[in-house]
């Protein structure tokens, strides 16, 4: 049981960005008075700085406490509904334990840096005159929602934040709503998000029901884990025509949470909303898709790792979903020509690795990878944004080339992030986290067919390395493939944009210290004790069910590094030394290229299988039939029309304004009441 210590300032961590976000939107939406760009950035970055400082303060308080302790800030009862004994209450309360601490620091810290970058980026790129403040309104609220997700003390509050994350990411993707692509991409992201929300609600309800049936009706995160034995032996039976087997409630709930996390972290079968989402402004991509949204999914899974420990089927499915997503999206990234889509696919790959980590029973590795990913991926997105902006919104890698020679510092930052992303040992943070995931996958004996799991993950590692190195060379090196007059105007971005990138790149390097496996630390000439700090920090919060806690295994390390090199070298070879070769290979293996370039026809599947049915469902069934015909048509319009007609013909005549009629009606009503009382009372 976790010990809880009351703290009263946690509420301000999400409240500060929430406040500024609301302020921005009220200012442009309701008051219609824009603030100056300077005021907007000052307010927003002050709020984010405040949130970060408070997070650090909370972190200091937390590590001064015992292991397994948590800070809890209970603002008050938020919702209290229901009739005793099945009263349902949810507190407005925040919780800061080891897991929340890591995510909170990352979200607040990276959020602040990306917002500073955005201040420079959005200043230069305003297509709509209210864009600047609108962007900060959305992104502040997005960060506030994200902080609510990671700090929520109960699942209801977490759900509120979750919905907020969905809504504001939708608004950010569709930020340039006038452009058809943005609007379309936003719609498909929105549809997927609602599927995830629904799954999350079902999961929460299942948990609540199960716990309430066992007499401990609670949705508080700490108490759910303590009351976990309520799930023992509770199961639903499948219908007879499906075999009639019972399925444990824990597994069903696990599936629901898994679906929700998949939708949020762009895993199969929802993978394909992510590439579309690159229509967002680049800082938004860095923030939403680089640092936060997938992290929300991974946070949910890690937070509920105790549930997945008793639902091995859900965990196994999670691992498989992760691997297959990683493999597919890494493959897709290899042929994609839109620079931001390549990065989006690589994000999906990394998130696939994280899913693999939780599914294989080592959530710590997944959390660690989420942290690393939040360091390096925003840098890549920001760098891509710089390139795109300097080439006048050119997204196509094939029309770039040799940009890097004009933007040295950006290139250096991107290289550091890239090495971290593809995992070049030993000093880049992304390496260790992913290695441990692969170790877990290697040892995941509980998962059926775990051997191919590991092999497929290795292939994904190689493909990922290939795709990101390819992106680097196509964009920054080689020959110039865009009009020469633009080239003269490419320059290093302003310091306000460069510095956040540099800080994050530094974190990519320093980040390895938080999770350095002991086996690696022993290689140092000086002695390092207790090196794997993140694992020890999280030990009390996360439930690790990996078979063997081998901190590192040299054979796995060798294979991972080997695959990375195998992926990266051909990319360098193809795109640097023999630039004509890719074209030849494309024609030679046209069928394969066609398959991959057409996204394995997955987008067709995604569109027809998920987005279209959902849209059709919501449009035809919910929208046209239920909403328009039944609710609007019959209930609302029907009622309204009926009443309109009624009122035109009848009701109007009931207010003629004559007192005599009023008094007469009053008498009739009074008489009716008296007669009722006499009859029902038994007097007459």
């Amino acid at each position: 049981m976790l010990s809880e210590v009351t703290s009263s300032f946690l509420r301000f961590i999400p409240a500060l960005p929430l406040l500024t976000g609301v302020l921005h939107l009220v200012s442009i939406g309701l008051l219609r008075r824009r603030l100056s760009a300077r005021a907007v950035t000052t307010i927003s970055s002050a709020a984010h700085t405040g949130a970060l400082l408070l997070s650090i303060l909370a972190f200091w308080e937390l590590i001064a406490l015992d292991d397994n302790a948590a800070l809890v800030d209970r603002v008050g009862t938020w919702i209290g509904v229901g009739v005793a004994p099945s009263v349902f209450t949810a507190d407005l309360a925040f919780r800061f334990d080891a897991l929340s601490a890591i995510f909170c620091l990352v979200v607040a810290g990276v959020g602040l840096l990306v917002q500073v970058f955005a201040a420079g980026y959005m200043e230069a790129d305003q297509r709509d005159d209210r864009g600047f403040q609108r962007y900060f309104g959305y992104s502040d609220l997005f960060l506030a929602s994200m902080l609510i997700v990671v700090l929520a003390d109960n699942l209801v509050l977490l759900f509120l934040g979750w919905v907020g994350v969905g809504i504001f990411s939708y608004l950010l993707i569709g930020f340039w709503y006038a452009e058809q692509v943005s609007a379309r991409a936003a719609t498909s992201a929105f549809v997927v998000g609602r599927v995830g929300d629904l799954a999350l609600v079902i999961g929460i309800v299942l948990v609540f029901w199960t716990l309430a049936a066992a007499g401990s009706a609670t949705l508080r995160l700490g108490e759910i884990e303590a009351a976990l034995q309520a799930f023992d032996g509770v199961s639903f039976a499948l219908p007879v025509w499906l075999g009639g087997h019972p399925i444990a409630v824990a597994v069903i709930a696990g599936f629901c949470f898994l679906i929700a996390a998949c939708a949020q972290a762009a895993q199969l079968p929802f993978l394909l909303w992510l590439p579309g989402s690159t229509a967002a402004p680049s800082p938004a991509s860095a923030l939403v898709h680089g640092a936060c949204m997938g992290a929300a999914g991974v946070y949910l899974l890690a937070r509920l790792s105790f549930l997945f420990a008793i639902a091995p089927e859900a965990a196994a499915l999670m691992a498989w979903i992760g691997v297959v997503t990683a493999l597919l999206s890494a493959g897709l990234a290899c042929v994609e020509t839109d620079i931001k889509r390549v990065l989006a696919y690589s994000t999906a790959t990394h998130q696939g690795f994280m899913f693999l980590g939780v599914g294989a029973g080592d959530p710590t590795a997944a959390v660690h990878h989420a942290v690393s990913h939040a360091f390096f991926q925003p840098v890549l997105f920001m760098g891509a944004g710089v390139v795109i902006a300097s080439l006048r919104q050119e997204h196509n890698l094939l029309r770039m080339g040799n940009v890097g020679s004009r933007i040295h510092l950006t290139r250096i930052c991107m290289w550091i992030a890239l090495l971290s992303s593809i995992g070049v040992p030993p000093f880049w943070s992304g390496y260790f986290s992913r290695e441990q995931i692969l170790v877990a996958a290697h040892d995941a004996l509980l998962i059926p067919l775990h051997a191919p799991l590991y092999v497929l993950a290795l292939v994904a590692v190689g493909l990922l390395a290939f795709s990101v190195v390819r992106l680097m060379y196509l964009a920054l090196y080689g020959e110039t493939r865009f009009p020469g007059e633009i080239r003269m105007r490419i320059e290093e971005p302003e310091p306000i944009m460069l510095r956040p990138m540099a800080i994050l790149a530094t974190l990519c390097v320093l980040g390895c210290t938080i999770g350095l496996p002991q086996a690696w630390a022993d290689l140092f000439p000086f002695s390092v004790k207790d090196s794997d700090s993140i694992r020890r920090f999280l030990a009390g919060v996360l439930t690790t069910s990996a078979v063997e806690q081998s901190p590192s295994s040299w054979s796995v390390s060798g294979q991972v590094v080997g695959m990375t090199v195998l992926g990266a070298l051909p990319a360098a070879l193809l795109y640097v030394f023999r630039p004509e070769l890719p074209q030849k290979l494309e024609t030679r293996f046209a069928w394969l290229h066609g398959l991959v370039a057409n996204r394995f026809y997955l987008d067709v599947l995604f569109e027809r299988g998920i987005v279209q049915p959902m849209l059709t469902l919501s449009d035809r069934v919910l929208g046209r039939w239920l909403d328009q015909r039944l609710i609007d048509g019959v209930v609302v319009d029907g009622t309204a029309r009926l009443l309109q007609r009624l009122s035109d013909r009848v009701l109007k005549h009931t207010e003629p304004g004559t007192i005599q009629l009023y008094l007469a009606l009053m008498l009739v009503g009074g008489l009716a009441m008296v007669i009722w009382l006499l009859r029902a009372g038994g007097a007459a």
Partner: protein
Amino acid sequence: MQALAMPFGALGPAAVLAMGAVAVLLAEVLFLRRSSTLSPSSGVERRARLLLAAVASVAILVAIGVALGGVADSAAASAGSPDSELRLDGLAAVSIALICFGGLLCLWLSTTYLTVLRIEHGGYYALLLLSMAGSAVVLAAENLMVLWVGFELAANPTHALVGFDRKRRRSTEAGLKSFITSAFASAILVYGIALLYGATGQLDYAALRAGLVADDGLAMTGLGLVLVGFAWKAALVPFHQWAPDAWEGAPTPVTAFLSVAATATALLTLLRVVDHALADLGELLRPLFWALSAASIVLGAAMSIIQQSVKRMLAWASVAHAGYAAMALVAATGSARVAMIFYLFVYVLMHVGAFGVVVTLAAGGREVEQIDDFAGLSRTRPGLAAALTLFLLALAGIPGTAGFFARLEIFTATIGAGELGLVAVGVLGSVVSLYAYLRLPIAMYMRDTRRQGRGQATMSELLVIGICAIAVVWLGLLPNAQLPGLGAGLLDWIASAVG
């Protein structure tokens, strides 16, 4: 004044308010005698007016303090003996505080409006205070005669206030109409009381509760007539017809005050009477309240749709809201009582806020009240348009506003009492009323400007609108978050005070 109120016991809040009324009248005589010769905007005049408003505000604040002080001391301290005619128990204190709070907001809304429409003349504030004093009597009454006297004291000043704008025929007409129907209703009420007395020989609530039997025809006839009187005051269908006329014709701050003085007072009193005197007849009364509530919700929502005047639309909305609050009488449980008081509090906030915007827009000598007049308001007065939209969404019960939680609480209590059908009617009514209320935001945000409102909102108006807006949002997000002054969340505080 607090010390002065002590000897009055349970009559304390009413006494303070009445003294305030006298003080305001005196101040008016002393400082405002030559008002007809001075121009309304002269400095002397303005300062004198400010003084009147200040005196009245102080009286109201002291009355709130006296009422709540009674609760804080412990329910029994200032309550008087159990068989006394007036008792300032928790329910009475919370009700009086609610009415006084609403009245205070309306008073602050009045100051500028009266000048702008040039209808400022003697006694406005005194009438306001006297009506509230009547409410304070009726809400603490433990005896039907005291109740009737209190009702008269509460109602008669409102007729004068409704007809206060003597230059406008609508106002005069509305005042006369509300006076005549009110007299009729009072007669019915007192006739009912007489019959009850004839049947049981009792007038005290507690004694009535013991003496009333369901198969006594005389008593039941009397009870029916008493309920007619209450339903008229609360404007429950089918006893509501006076309300739209009076609300539309009255000067707008008075309309806002009617929602406090008439509807909220009558419903809170009904709650008290049902609780103290009629608790044993619950099963008999339940279908009656069910019918009143459902009819009010349906007709109130339906009639809102066809109104072109915002004030009249809000009057019908008030009919519907009285129906929602009456759902608590159907449920008749402890949590329903709390839900009803919370509902009425939110109702006062929403209505006073919405009327506050209408008041603020009143242009030189002419009211802005047709829906068409609001077209394009979001461009000329974005803040007011946003506030009005907020209040309308709250009236329709949209999540995120106090209206949602108020309705949720009352629906939950009603479901708890097993009255699913009534809740279904309530939900349907919410949907229909949304259709009605949204016409105004549509006009404000999607149509072009037609005419400009008054130039500048004054501090007192902004204060009222701001208080209402913040409270509506705050209670909509955190309905039960701890409030600094109360030491508990609003719902918990009401529950513990009413206990």
